[in-house]
């Protein structure tokens, strides 16, 4: 490979691509050529850096200078200043929320500082479409080690010793799963990579594939060797075109290099991978529904009294792991189980369920400064994630709650911010690890409304097979809607709790089994909000508009807004009257409480009581 003076690592994850990072790339290449720097400076397209809120991102290596929110217009200035004059451009750098000066180096930024990269070890450092760059970063080295120097049993023991647990949500010890599948009767066996990530706002799996598809493939090859499998599937959502394309490219390149296919590394071991596209049903992320979908049947879960490691795909032993789980495997083989087990919480010497080891990737969204993808060691506190990595709550608002684990995760209150993030502690608090969604809520979020929102999602995504999930969740949602509209009654809370436990206890799969979590945790930690809705017919966060009373402060309306009349013109119900320079009034009988007036008034004259 040719050496360059500087490598411009341009993020090409879905977030940055949507923000036109490919246009920036064109502009950069044009400008570099124009300035005659093409032999000195190279533009490298990389996978996602995770800091999606600030995209498109560009990291100049080896200086480690971090630029963000780039547009093609910034390019001439950047090239001129940084690469010709040698002066990094401050105004294109990242400035933390409360800081005055920008932070030039990537590793000094709070968002990156608190992270620990295992599954995402190659993010931002390699071109995901070039296998040579991955190999330069040790990709496929673990396969060589496994195939030439380890027996399948040794590989399984190594994974067991590492304490790796399923990252898809269940947290089942990976080594035990592999061992059961290896020991199960029936041939052939299969391995599957679950890349059907359906949680709203979660994009861990997409990112791993987009930034380093080879880590997933390598993990699958190792798993296949350990279990004794020669066929694998990656089930990926159709909505992930970029990830799918990169996976295709990676598989083709790996095949060309003999890292997939027949007789890998001349050891007689055969393994190949096929990509299956999912049509976007959330429930197909459930292992049995996913397998039904691969078989060409309707994606519906079945009872797992007979485990899929014994009777899975086409009724044959099948080992299904999530993208992140597979991506963790090569690191464990390369660096050893001991290293992996040294990260995280608990003790796994007695029981594999005794601790949570390694790191976990979270997609941090909601009311935080630094939304994006983060990989943090297990055992980190929620506070560290939200305030250190996430940079805290914007606009000086108060933190209210954080939801972990996707749409069926529970809401954890401020009291629990010092909770350590691991499988057991999250479950104990009424939430879950899930696949790693993390939504932060502030004082403006009504917890009843949030519970309603997430329940509406799970209801819409329920396959409808079993009564509790189909009709129980529907009944719960009806009650929540009733409460947010001010029509709730005192008995509704008991009924909600009763229904929640019914749905959890009787549902067929984990979708229904966890769907009531947002309701149960909000009832547990934020019960007073429910009571306010029911007893006082008020929404403390003012998010449930049907409960709000909108009035106009005459003072502000006249003195600041001079009776501008925007609210009057925008009101869809013609409920507002008034004249220029005079105060306006809202006719409460006509007001449908849409809240448009509140949104459009620039002078904060609209008040909610």
């Amino acid at each position: 490979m040719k050496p360059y003076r500087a490598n411009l690592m341009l993020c090409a994850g879905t977030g940055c691509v949507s923000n036109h990072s490919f246009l920036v790339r064109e502009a950069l290449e044009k400008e570099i050529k124009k300035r005659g720097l093409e032999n000195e400076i190279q533009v490298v397209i990389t996978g996602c850096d995770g800091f999606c809120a600030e995209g498109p991102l560009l990291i100049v290596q080896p200086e480690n200078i971090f630029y963000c929110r780039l547009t093609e217009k910034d390019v001439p200035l950047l090239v001129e200043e940084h690469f010709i004059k040698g002066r990094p451009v401050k105004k294109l750098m990242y400035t933390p929320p409360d800081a005055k000066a920008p932070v030039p180096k990537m590793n000094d930024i709070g968002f990156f500082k608190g992270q620990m990269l295992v599954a995402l070890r190659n993010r931002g450092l390699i071109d995901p479409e070039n296998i040579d760059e991955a190999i330069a970063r040790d990709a496929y080295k673990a396969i060589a080690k496994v195939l030439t120097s380890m027996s399948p049993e040794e590989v399984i023991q190594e994974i067991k010793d590492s304490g790796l647990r399923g990252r898809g949500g269940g947290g089942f010890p990976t080594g035990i799963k592999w061992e059961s599948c290896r020991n199960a009767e029936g041939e052939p066996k299969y391995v599957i990579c679950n890349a059907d990530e359906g949680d709203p706002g979660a994009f861990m799996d997409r990112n791993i594939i987009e930034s380093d598809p080879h880590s997933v493939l390598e993990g699958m090859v190792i798993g296949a060797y350990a279990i004794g499998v020669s066929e694998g599937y990656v089930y990926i959502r159709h909505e992930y075109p970029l990830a799918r394309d990169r996976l295709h490219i990676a598989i083709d390149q790996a095949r060309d290099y003999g890292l997939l296919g027949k007789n890998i590394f001349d050891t007689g071991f055969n393994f190949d991978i096929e990509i299956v596209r999912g049509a976007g049903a959330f429930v197909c992320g459930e292992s049995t529904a996913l397998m039904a979908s691969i078989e060409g049947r309707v994606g519906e879960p079945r009872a797992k009294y007979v485990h899929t490691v014994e009777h899975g795909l086409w009724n044959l032993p099948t080992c299904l792991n999530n993208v992140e789980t597979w991506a963790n495997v090569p690191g464990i083989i390369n660096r050893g189980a001991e290293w992996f087990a040294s990260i995280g919480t608990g003790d796994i010497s007695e029981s594999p369920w005794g601790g949570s080891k390694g790191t976990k990737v979270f997609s941090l969204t909601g009311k935080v400064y630094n939304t994006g993808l983060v990989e943090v060691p297990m055992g980190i506190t929620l506070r560290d994630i939200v305030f250190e990595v996430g940079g805290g709550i914007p606009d000086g608002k108060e933190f209210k709650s954080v939801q972990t684990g996707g749409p069926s995760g529970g809401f954890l209150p401020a009291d629990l911010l010092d909770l350590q993030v691991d499988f057991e502690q999250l479950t104990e608090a009424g939430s879950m690890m899930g696949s790693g969604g993390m939504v932060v809520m502030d004082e403006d979020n009504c917890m009843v409304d949030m519970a309603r929102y997430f329940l509406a999602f799970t209801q819409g995504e329920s396959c409808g097979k079993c009564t509790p999930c189909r009709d129980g969740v529907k009944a719960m949602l009806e009650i929540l809607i009733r409460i947010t509209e001010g029509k709730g009654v005192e008995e509704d809370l008991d009924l909600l709790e009763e229904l929640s436990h019914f749905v959890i206890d009787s549902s067929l799969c984990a979708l229904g089994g966890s769907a009531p979590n947002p309701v149960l945790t909000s009832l547990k930690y934020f019960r007073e909000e429910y009571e306010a809705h029911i007893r006082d017919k008020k929404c403390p966060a003012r998010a449930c508009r049907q409960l709000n009373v909108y009035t106009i402060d005459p003072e502000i309306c006249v003195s600041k807004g001079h009776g501008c009349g925007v609210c009057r013109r925008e009101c869809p119900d013609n409920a507002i009257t008034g004249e220029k320079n005079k105060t306006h009034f809202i006719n409460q009988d006509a007001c449908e409480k849409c809240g448009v007036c509140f949104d459009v008034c620039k002078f904060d004259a609209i008040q909610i009581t």
Partner: protein
Amino acid sequence: MITVTIDGQKTEVEKETTILKAADKLGIKIPTLCYNELIEPYAACRLCIVEVIRGKRSRLVTACNYPLRQPVEVRTNSERVMKLRRMNLELLMARAPAAKIVRELAAEMGIEKTRFTIDNPEETCILCGLCVQVCENLVGTGAISFTDRGPDRKVATPYDVTSDACILCGACAHFCPTGHIQMTDIEERILHSELTLGPNTAISIPFRQAIPNAPRINPDYCIHMKTGGCEICSQVCPKECINYDDKDEFEEIEVSAVIVATGFQDFDPAPMKQFGYGKYANVLSAGEFEQMNNAASPTSGRIVLENGEEPRSIAILHCIGSRDDNYHKYCSRVCCMYALKFAHLVKEKTEAEVYQLYIDMRAFGKGYEEFYQRLLSEGVHVIRGKGAEIIPAPPDESSEGNLLVHCEDTLISKFREIPVDMVILCTALEARKDAPELARKLNISTGADGWYIEAHPKLAPVSTTTDGIYLAGACQGPKDIPDSVAQGAAAAGHVIKILNQGELLMDAAYAVIQEEYCSGCKMCNGLCPYTAISFDEEKKVSVINAALCKACGTCVAACPSGAIVARHFTDEQIYAQIEGILV
């Protein structure tokens, strides 16, 4: 074998037995909605959830598909289980308020009303999935499936249109626990026989007292023959008698004589729209009514309406398709008497009024007229006049029937409108549709109505024009049972005569071809109604088989060379006779 405890009772079961089956063994009933033993458990209704306790751990599982592998304790009616079951039923009551089975199960648990929103008070589908499972896995057609998801889930055909994949087997409707799926005839014809007497099953004994008295599979209805699926019969047959490979076979039998006793077929009254057969469920053909009266019928011989109630009045309409210029001009002979028998049966079994609508009452046999007189004294109403039309009665509480029969009472010259609950149509006896086909094969002839023609109406009423072939019963014309028996005995007598003689005495009259005149044109070959003429390829002349020839003379008249002569009826002989008469 493992020992499990269910509700305090211990039992030994094989490993992998489901809790449901183990409980069933102990006589413990666990309610289910989506379970059927013929189908792999679907575990969707969640009603059969029970508590499994092992050591200190308690777990909720569905009994229908949870395999017992360890000695555990199962509680099917703990408070925790009952709470879930009650909530489940309450939710199902909101989904399908009209489903009787759900209401009954809920009532057993003491639930009368649901606390949840009812979207459709008429809904009966509980989405148990039995129909979908049956269609896909048992029948193997997959014509119906679940569509949409979550609360909007429903069972449908693709795009909700009538599916060509559906083989109309009715298995889905049969398995549906709530009656949500109903069979409708595609031509909108109600078949009373199917409603009252059960559907045509693919496996049945062909008719009562059949020999051998064994069931056989009708490949037209059998799902297995169509799709390769199902096989329920072989699963339930304890003696492993079901043989799907058995096929219809053709056998060739050499015989010396044939008795044709193919009988008649019932006239189909459906085209006579005025009687509403097929449109109104309580308009029956005579055959259907007769079947209903049989003690072995699904109604056990009771006379009931389609809704299971006893009729208040019945009209019996004579001459449906008989003595009718538009259908059959002949009298079907037997209807008057069986109509009187029906009236007698109705009077004996029910309190219903009976009306006989006749053109002429033909009680011609020994004791028949007496029977007619007896019926009159039993209070049967007889109206001289053919039924004209049947219409549904207007909904009126005071009405004495749900149908109105219009007729003219010709004895009092008045139009009448008779309210009745049930109508029996005395349908004509008609020749079988396939009678002409058999006639061609046997070289016998049929009349304009399709009945087989005997050799001579008075002198040879049993024989046909082909020697060795005899007629018996209603294939020759409408006949009652005594007449059929008599003719059958006569035919048998003829046959015995032939069999004893060992040879047939031929008529001396037959045609011969004079080879020297035959040009070999073959014209006669096709003309011979008895296929007695063939062509001798060596001599290039036609030849008559004297044993088959009936001396009808057709070939004699047709031969362009005048090469054929009828023995005993040569031209010379006929001229001589003519001359003899003239002189």
